[in-house]
């Protein structure tokens, strides 16, 4: 039995692997380690340093959906920002292994994304990542048209032909069930659910390797929420795109994620298959969350 404990057999190679990702806000002091933790809280009472993420480990296989669930202050949004490379990590590594179709060809040597310089980081973000935020104003520019917003990522990837850009934007709008004739309308003319679709269209415009979704349905009306989630599931089905989904709502995680991470006070307290987390939660906090489903 001990032989098989750490089974090296895997079905697919991992695409993204995080080791001990840590993000803190504050100077840190010798007392921090003893006074912060999943149960003690994420703020050191001596120096006031907030440990938004502490030693987060996870791995993500190509084509799978990983859910991250936690309440306010759990660090889940910080984690998304760390993966999106907009916030620098204080410790840890974030290994990325590109797909076979990348420019590197067959060379799949893992790359620590946290060591990239500003320019390379931005290149990676523009070409390999897509993100959808909870609030549309974070992901979209309200003064540009919807087409312009979707085009932004393409323009960042050096597309320079207006006709082709519009065609691609139109295709993406159809994919996300938006009326393509509204391509020149400005975001304030759209409803919340539609703006989430615009964000999804924008995030997918450059065929990213990884799609990050940060509380994308929180705050939407229930029927709208259902439609957006169905759309995400459908897109995952059709495009086989790898996703990282953050939500405080276990129902959302249940619908979409194959595997789930449970976070509390910046720490991962439990991770496993989603149905296992929901039906056989091990950690007391997970049990509390599961018992709180409406």
């Amino acid at each position: 039995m001990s032989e098989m404990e750490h089974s090296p057999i895997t079905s697919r190679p991992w695409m993204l692997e995080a080791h001990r990702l840590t993000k803190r806000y504050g100077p840190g002091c010798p007392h921090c380690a003893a006074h912060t933790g999943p149960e003690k809280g994420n703020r050191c009472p001596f120096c006031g340093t907030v440990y938004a993420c502490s030693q987060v480990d996870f791995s993500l296989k190509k084509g799978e959906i990983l859910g991250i669930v936690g309440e306010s202050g759990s660090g889940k949004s910080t984690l998304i920002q760390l993966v999106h490379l907009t916030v620098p990590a204080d410790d840890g590594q974030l290994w990325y292994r590109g797909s076979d179709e990348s420019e590197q060809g067959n060379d799949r040597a893992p790359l620590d994304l946290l060591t990239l310089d500003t320019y390379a980081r931005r290149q990676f973000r523009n070409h390999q990542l897509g993100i959808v935020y909870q609030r549309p104003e974070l992901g979209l520019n309200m003064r540009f048209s919807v087409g312009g917003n979707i085009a932004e990522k393409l323009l960042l990837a050096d597309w320079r032909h207006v006709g082709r850009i519009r065609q691609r934007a139109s295709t993406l709008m159809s994919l996300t069930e938006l009326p393509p004739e509204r391509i020149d309308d400005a975001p304030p003319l759209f409803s919340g659910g539609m703006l989430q679709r615009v964000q999804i269209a924008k995030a997918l415009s450059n065929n990213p390797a990884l799609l990050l979704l940060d509380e994308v349905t929180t705050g939407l009306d229930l029927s709208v929420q259902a439609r957006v989630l169905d759309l995400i599931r459908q897109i995952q089905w059709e495009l086989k795109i790898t996703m990282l989904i953050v939500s405080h709502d276990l129902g959302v995680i249940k619908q979409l994620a194959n595997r789930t991470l449970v976070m509390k006070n910046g720490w991962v307290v439990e991770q496993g298959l989603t149905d296992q987390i929901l039906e056989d939660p091990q950690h007391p906090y997970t049990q509390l969350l599961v018992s709180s489903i409406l």
Partner: protein
Amino acid sequence: MTSSRFEELMMQSATASQENHGAAEERSDHDPLYNFAFIDEDSKREIRRKLLKAVALPGHLVPFASRDLPIARGWGTGGLQVTMALVEPRDTVKIIDQGDDESVNAVNLRRLLQQTTGLRFTTDTTEATCIQTRHRVPEEPLRADQILVLQVPMADPLRWVEPSLERSAQMHAEADYGRMWVYMYESVVRSGDMNIGAQYPVMVDNRYMMDTTPVPRYDVPRFHMAETLYLFGAGREKRVYAIPPYTRVAPLEFEDYPFKTEHDSTQFCAKCGANDTFLTRHFIVSTNGQGHWTAFCSDTSYCHKRYEAQMQQEAKEVPFV
């Protein structure tokens, strides 16, 4: 002022010798109440250092300490300070405002400089060593021994898309100009074609995005791989930038909407007959009270030169009777 003289002057700034300044003052013929070219030598030194940095980083905005002048902000103080920092007694200066040597602004600037420097002024572009201009590049091609100083109303091309100075500075630092491209896309989509008339954004040396100042699109190609040094001064915003000679300057354009100037070869100047210069339209009221729009060359001195040449030519052709 040649570019080698420019280099010499930069070396002098580094050492800041007082004797040089005194010698310059003695040679010139200016009002003794003021320092040569109005601003003090330390200020000139500071501006020259910043200009040096600007030349080293083509298209990059360099902040400088903009001094108080007897001219209000927004009336050319930036360009004026650049000119003041560079001119010396042997220079010949030309000042134009939208191509016109005789506009009120150009005349006022000229008077100030004349009084404080005693320099020789000219309206002939080919004779000037230093040309200060507002919103127009002269028609006659500039040489390596000349410097063009442009007045800048707003220095940062990103202000249309990013009002926050901190964020736009970061965008410049990271060459993150995506949002500006979206602005260009929107312009095409909303008006059917590229709709930016002036202050056309360009990429300098494939690194920095730069505002060309409100020169017409007609003048934008003149910046690319030019012999002359272009210096830009924004007094209100307190920034300078530069395009050194033989620098790649590429206007932002799309493959299916390439950059176009306003050139229309069917339009002619009513005075000199040219159809290959930038024309401005004036409403002329004739003696019978009727008025109509007439096009004239924007570059008045060039227009006048051509006109004079034509008159002489005609005079030669007409047999003396």
